[in-house]
């Protein structure tokens, strides 16, 4: 395995001096081998993070990550890049806070600038019910050791001068403020993990769709792909919106429905918003990218959908509501709109679990909260795959919780816009 150079200020200067001829590919693109200890389906953030922590924490390095499209081309590249961990339930706070902490050191750990920007995430309380809900989450966060505070409309105005506090329909009554939340460069997260995995000798195989999952006596033995048949001891399914399709190949069903979630960006403007603002009552959230575009996300569509587009009226409703809260954006033109297929569970919490098929593990159901959880999800999933037992982070998120009625109910805790 060829050792790649480290990225550093020195490397930048060196390459500048020699016309940038010395940069190497960030990750290899090998053909798959016949057999691996672990095969991971899905080279999005979660799949790649799972591979990375299998190698780093558990010394499992004979690993392949199979991707039907291109690396990070699914929801990893289709989200609004928000990172926060202010959840109500203890199990959620634990895994999302783990993820947020890992984001803080990710650029250093992976020697790859993922542009993590802890600019702060503000969730507006625009009804009395919401204000009470956020105060409750704030109390829970204090007990959980997650740093958040409930702030007044005056503090909201100081942090975000462009906001209309007294808005006619939904005045801002307060906000839940997580100063250590923020954003990161979404593609870079996938690229950083891919590079680190490749350096550990793992195989990342793009354009390699899995067509069948082979089992014998209730245990996985391999997968059939567009690039041939591959044997494996263990199989991790980490495919977000397509989890139902993959589960069907393995012969079981999931408590999941796939729907479209849309986002859009405006034309770039001068800096006017240096935090992330979420307005869950009106289904909209907004931040400004380094390029100056306003990145806007809305609520999920209401029906099953695999088309990665979504309904126009959802975008219309999101923008209509945000224009009321941020009057200065009313004349902006929107540049692009896109949709991602999110996998929604009944309790709006993820599934990190063993499955009815032995040595098949599934990580899915992140719904509208996938990007922020990538490192924590990979950490917990790697532990599950390596030891065949969930660790402390993954244990509450088993598939059995639905049958047991032991929900991790974040649909009530966080409203619709995660």
């Amino acid at each position, binding site marked *: 395995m060829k050792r790649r150079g480290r990225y550093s200020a020195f490397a930048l200067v060196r390459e500048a001096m020699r016309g940038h001829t010395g940069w190497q590919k960030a990750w290899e693109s090998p053909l798959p081998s016949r057999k691996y200890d672990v095969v991971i389906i899905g080279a999005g953030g979660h799949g790649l993070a799972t591979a990375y922590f299998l190698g780093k924490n558990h010394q499992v390095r004979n690993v392949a990550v199979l991707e039907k499209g291109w690396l990070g081309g699914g929801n990893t590249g289709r989200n609004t890049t928000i990172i926060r961990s202010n959840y109500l339930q203890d199990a959620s706070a634990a895994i999302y806070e783990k993820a947020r902490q890992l984001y803080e050191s990710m650029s250093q750990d992976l020697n790859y600038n993922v542009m993590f920007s802890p600019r702060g995430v503000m969730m507006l309380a625009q009804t009395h019910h919401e204000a009470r809900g956020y105060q409750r989450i704030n109390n829970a966060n204090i007990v959980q050791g997650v740093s958040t505070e409930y702030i007044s409309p005056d503090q909201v105005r100081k942090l975000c001068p462009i906001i209309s506090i007294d808005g006619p329909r939904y005045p801002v009554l307060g906000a839940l403020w997580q100063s250590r939340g923020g954003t990161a460069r979404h593609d870079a997260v996938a690229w950083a993990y891919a590079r680190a995995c490749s350096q550990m000798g793992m195989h990342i195989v793009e354009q390699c769709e899995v067509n069948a999952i082979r089992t014998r006596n209730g245990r996985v033995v391999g997968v059939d792909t567009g690039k041939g048949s591959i044997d494996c001891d263990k199989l991790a399914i980490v495919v977000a919106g397509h989890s*139902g399709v993959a589960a069907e190949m393995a012969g079981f*069903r999931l408590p*999941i429905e*796939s729907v479209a979630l849309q986002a859009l960006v405006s034309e770039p403007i001068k800096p006017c918003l240096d935090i992330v603002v979420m307005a869950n009552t009106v289904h909209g959230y907004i931040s400004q990218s380094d390029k100056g575009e306003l990145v806007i996300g809305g609520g999920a569509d*209401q029906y099953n959908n*695999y088309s990665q587009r979504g*309904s*126009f009226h959802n975008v219309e409703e999101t923008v209509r509501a945000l224009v009321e809260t941020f009057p200065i954006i009313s004349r902006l033109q929107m540049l692009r709109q896109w949709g991602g297929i999110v996998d929604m569970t*009944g309790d709006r919490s993820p599934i990190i679990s063993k499955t009815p098929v032995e040595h098949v593990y599934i990580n899915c159901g992140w719904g509208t909260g996938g990007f922020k959880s990538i490192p924590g999800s990979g950490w917990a999933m790697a532990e599950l795959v390596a030891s065949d037992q969930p660790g402390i982070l993954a244990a509450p998120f088993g598939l059995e919780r*639905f049958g047991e009625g032991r929900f991790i109910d974040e649909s009530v805790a966080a409203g619709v816009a995660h």
Partner: protein
Amino acid sequence: MLMLTCPYCGIAADETELHGGGEAHITRAGVEASDAEFEEYLFTRANPKGVHFEKWHHSRGCGRWFHAARCTVTMEVFGTYSAQTLQPPDEILAEIERRRPAASGK
């Protein structure tokens, strides 16, 4: 925008006039059902990439529930029909068979 024709009032309704109700033809588990059957009824869903039979509520129209057969990839609608059935009617299945020979019977 998705449009569905309500089989009761006959109006071709925009999706903003409707409310999605999820998978259709789910058999309700009774009091004698096992835990596994109840879990299946409450939570487990087909979630197909392709032909989906689903419930819709004409909430801003005549107020009735009806069923639709729709492709979740192309948004193509194969037809709408009464909610008072335990399975899709033959003419809906025939229409799916005609347009999606591989997907029939699902």
